[in-house]
């Protein structure tokens, strides 16, 4: 059933009883040409593009929980392509362009809202770093603007201009950046993939990876053995756990990142704003909640929950940036498990194991990457060659000395 204003009216008149399931609930077949492990945003997008762009037919996505139950359902929904390094910027801009056509492509409203992402700077060296980044964006054809304090005051009068410990001097704006409704992204890809014949198999946990002659031939799951021609791993947060089943050595640690939402409020923050004197980012959802987050808790964790010290720190930074937040009440906090890589950048890559392809290490940049990640991973799996915009995101870049380190923090995951 195609979604449209017309379909809504038609169904409303029949009591909304005729809507069909957004996707089937298939039982696994014994063999698929491609199995994607992980029914989150990236896995679903990969399956969709494999079917749509690369013409593959026999595809399954295996999800241990429900579709979209990983980080695609627990992030701060930010979409942007304001990176500095050539290993990242073309990839994220490719993603941005896909976002811009996504809803029509999927026939699903993911509520992309290009409201503008503003990164604040508080001193001259930060300003210089943003100029370097803004120019890198322009090199890739991505518009960026440097805002001075006066311009910011006009746009964001509620920022702490009068009492800041670290004065706000200006900001870098990407107007095309913004937010998207996270769950809808997963559901939109799932529905579109399903319509192209992809089997989305929920409650199907991978418990083992069967290999013959060093190459993957299938997976053991809670629903039995399923054979495959190729296996794509897209289980960020748990990449190491699944990778271990194939003895894959990975430059990844799992860390918990908390995010928060406030009670619903009438529109008050119209952009995505990030703090430069700490790590804090905030936007307002279409429902009215302020959605925000800060830094990871800092320790390895697979628990989808964090601790109070980090909560307090995030709030401190929020109030430092926007003093008026002080009286806004925070409704809910949650934790997501992040694949933190050794350079803060993701991995879309071949692996040393035959038929096994890797998509992981998203740190906390995974959501915005969803479309490009899916496309490039599908490209890699289908053609066995790297997509040009993802050519730097190789697994062997660490051994070879080609880290993509936006923060310049070095091989310590909790610093990225």
């Amino acid at each position, binding site marked *: 059933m195609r979604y449209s204003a017309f379909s809504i009216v038609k169904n409303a008149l029949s009591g909304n009883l005729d809507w069909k399931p957004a996707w089937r609930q298939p039982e696994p077949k014994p063999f698929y040409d491609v199995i994607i492990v992980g029914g989150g945003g990236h896995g679903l997008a990969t399956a969709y593009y494999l079917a749509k762009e690369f013409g593959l037919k026999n595809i399954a996505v295996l999800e241990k929980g429900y579709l979209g139950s990983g980080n695609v359902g627990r992030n701060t929904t930010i979409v942007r392509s304001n990176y500095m390094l050539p290993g990242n910027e073309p990839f994220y801009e490719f993603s941005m362009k896909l976002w811009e056509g996504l809803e029509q492509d999927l026939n699903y409203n993911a509520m992309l809202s290009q409201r503008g992402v503003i990164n604040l700077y508080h001193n001259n060296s930060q300003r210089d770093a943003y100029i370097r980044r803004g120019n890198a964006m322009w090199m890739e054809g991505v518009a960026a603007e440097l805002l001075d304090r006066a311009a910011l005051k006009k746009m964001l009068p509620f920022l702490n201009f009068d009492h800041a410990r670290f004065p706000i001097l200006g900001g870098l704006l990407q107007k095309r950046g913004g937010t998207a409704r996270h769950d809808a992204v997963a559901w939109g890809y799932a529905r579109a993939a399903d319509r192209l014949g992809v089997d989305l198999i929920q409650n199907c946990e991978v418990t083992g990876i069967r290999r013959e002659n060093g190459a993957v031939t299938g997976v053991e799951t809670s629903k039995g053995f399923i054979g495959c021609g190729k296996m794509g791993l897209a289980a960020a947060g748990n990449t*190491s756990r699944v990778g271990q089943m194939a003895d894959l*050595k990975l*430059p990844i640690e799992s860390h918990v990142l908390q995010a928060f939402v406030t009670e619903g409020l009438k529109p008050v923050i119209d952009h995505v704003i990030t703090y430069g004197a700490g790590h804090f980012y905030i936007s307002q959802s279409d429902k009215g909640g302020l959605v925000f987050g800060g830094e990871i808790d*800092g320790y*390895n964790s*697979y628990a989808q929950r964090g601790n109070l010290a980090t909560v307090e720190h995030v709030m401190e930074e929020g109030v430092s940036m926007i003093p008026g937040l002080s009286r806004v009440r925070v409704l809910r906090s949650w934790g997501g498990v992040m694949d933190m890589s050794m350079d803060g950048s993701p991995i879309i890559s071949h692996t040393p194991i035959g038929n096994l392809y890797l998509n992981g290490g998203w740190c906390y940049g995974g959501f915005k990457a969803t479309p490009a990640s899916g496309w490039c991973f599908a490209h890699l799996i289908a053609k066995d060659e790297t997509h040009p915009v993802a050519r730097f995101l190789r697994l062997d870049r660490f*051994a070879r000395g080609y880290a993509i380190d936006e923060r310049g923090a070095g091989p310590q995951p909790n610093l990225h």
Partner: protein
Amino acid sequence: MASLIHCPHCGVRPSQEFSIRGDASVVRPAPEASDEAWHEYVHIRSNPHGRHREHWQHVAGCRRGLVVERDTFTHDVFSVTDGAAVAREGGR
């Protein structure tokens, strides 16, 4: 674990007083070790779900490096040991 740490030198202290460096199970290879060994020391992590050893430092206290052995899912702490003591025993 992430609220309080029992520092062997200072007692139970809030986690805000500590900084976390990372995996304590990797050991710096000998200078003559292979490229592969060095790459794995710097980049490859076992990232276990369950028992794990991490280097923490009591930066706002005794400033000692500590090895915290804990569970990465339940966050239960099994032991906190002085890092140098562990290193001298070769378990660094």
